């Protein structure tokens, strides 16, 4: 399988581990990621908070490039980029006047044919492969799937899952053997774009998310957004009281990678601020346990088979005597 790839600015900088882990899982799952040549920034929050036109024009340049380079689908792993690219494509379909204006601004051929995909859509389509290759490796590990806002809203534009009770990420986590816990704040906002400009709000919102996940028994929080990740990982020390166990915050691609048996080092997990050592250790333990169970089961099966052969061997012999 081959798919266009729009890494976006964060995945080339502060969220490199998202890029590295995603690429590592793609190799393991036989997916070829074809990066859009010369892609540019989508404008993110700053684009649409200041100019609607710019917030459509900047993503449109990338969609036009993807089209030029023969791509039908583009994977945008960053939730903010995904949201901007998909929203721009949607606005252009809905608003003919805007479409004319944007084509004029871009000054290059553009038919708006490329479909924008997020990382959950990619992995969801690969659940059979993930299930097979993971062989339940993370069985017993409890995770809280955190979707946040940009991946599910607005529902009219991003309709790949339910906006209030999304389940794609949970299904993907379960494919690795892990258990996804039920909790309340899976689509709450973490404060996203205020990470730099209004830190106190981010800490208030992040603390509530971590507390709820902890109450539900989660050992790790799973995210698919660089902003959620930097807020909840980088700022976690300010969100936790002394005595509370730190909560590792993993990109979905890192969890899938652990399920596939990839090494934490290959996935760049050393870059996290909250130590991921305990969850890596846990993964190794569950994997060993699952492997031991599988070995025991195989041994038992072999034994039963041997018995059956032995019985089968005696039956014809008996017949021969008779």
């Amino acid at each position, binding site marked *: 399988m081959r798919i266009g790839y729009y890494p976006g*600015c*964060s995945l*080339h*900088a*502060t969220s*490199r581990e998202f890029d590295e882990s995603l690429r590592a899982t793609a190799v393991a799952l036989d997916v070829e990621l074809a990066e859009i040549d*010369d*892609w*540019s*920034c989508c*404008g*993110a*929050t*700053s*684009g*649409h*908070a*200041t*100019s*609607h*036109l*710019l917030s459509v*024009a*900047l993503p449109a*340049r990338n969609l036009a490039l993807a089209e030029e380079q023969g791509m039908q689908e583009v994977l945008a792993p960053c939730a903010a980029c995904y949201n901007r690219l998909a929203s721009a494509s949607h606005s252009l379909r809905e*608003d003919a006047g805007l479409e004319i*204006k944007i084509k*004029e*601004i*871009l*000054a290059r051929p553009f038919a708006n044919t490329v479909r924008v995909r997020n990382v959950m859509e990619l992995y969801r389509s690969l659940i059979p492969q993930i299930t097979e290759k993971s062989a339940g490796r993370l069985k017993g590990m409890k995770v809280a799937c955190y979707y946040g*806002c940009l991946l*599910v*809203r*607005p*529902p009219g534009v991003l309709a790949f899952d339910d*906006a*209030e009770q999304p389940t794609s990420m949970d299904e993907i986590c379960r494919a690795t053997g892990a258990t996804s816990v039920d909790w309340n704040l899976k*689509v*709450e*906002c973490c*404060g*996203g*774009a*205020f990470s*730099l*400009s*209004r*830190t106190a*709000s981010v800490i208030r*919102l992040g603390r509530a998310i971590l507390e709820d996940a902890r109450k539900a028994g989660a050992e790790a929080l799973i995210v698919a957004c660089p902003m959620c990740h930097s807020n909840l990982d980088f700022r976690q020390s300010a969100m936790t009281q002394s005595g509370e166990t730190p909560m590792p915050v993993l990109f979905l691609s890192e969890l899938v990678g652990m399920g596939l048996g990839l090494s934490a080092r290959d996935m760049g997990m*050393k*870059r996290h*601020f909250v130590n991921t050592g305990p969850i890596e250790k846990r993964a190794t333990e569950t994997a060993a346990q699952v492997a031991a169970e599988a070995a025991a089961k195989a041994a038992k099966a072999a034994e039963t088979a041997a018995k059956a052969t032995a019985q089968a061997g005696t039956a014809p012999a008996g017949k021969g005597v008779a």
Partner: protein
Amino acid sequence: MSTSGAHGHATAPATLAAELRGKTGQNPAECYQCGKCSAGCPMAVETLLRPHDVMRLIGGDRRETLLEGESIWLCLTCEACTARCPNGCDPARMIDALREMSVARAPRAVGAFHRSFLDQVKANGRMFEFGLVLEYKLRSGKLLNDVFSTPGMISRGLLKFVPSPIKGVADVRRIFAACEREAARDLHASGADGRDQ
């Protein structure tokens, strides 16, 4: 859309609601003030004007209150309000449109952040976070404020240092210029720049 009158004078649209309807294609008067949007708003406890307040004040034509206050800049665009409105209203889009109208009046911290971000994109075609942090600190005057513990980020290899513009950076700059021209035209047409008074 031109708002110029028959005598060639630009006249400001009659009401804020009408202007926003023109900009967004949505009718703010449809809001029936049930407050569901605000019930799920993550910033409701911090902001003075919650989404349903914004909707009401649009209807009340309270232009100054909305454009000069801090509230529209405290919206995270999480879209919870829009997703949950039982009536199909889009407070998040209204707030975006209001912000666009008041870009020049943005409170320093939030406005500085957006400007630094976009200047980076204009200069290089992409956003390079280290440059962004520096610029942001300079612009907002938060130099001594520990907004980002940079040493930690550097030692983990998380921040890139040297921005290298993309090949098509001229392309990107042209897009910015075109959007800025368009914005200036809108401002002129609405008479908000005072040139037609």
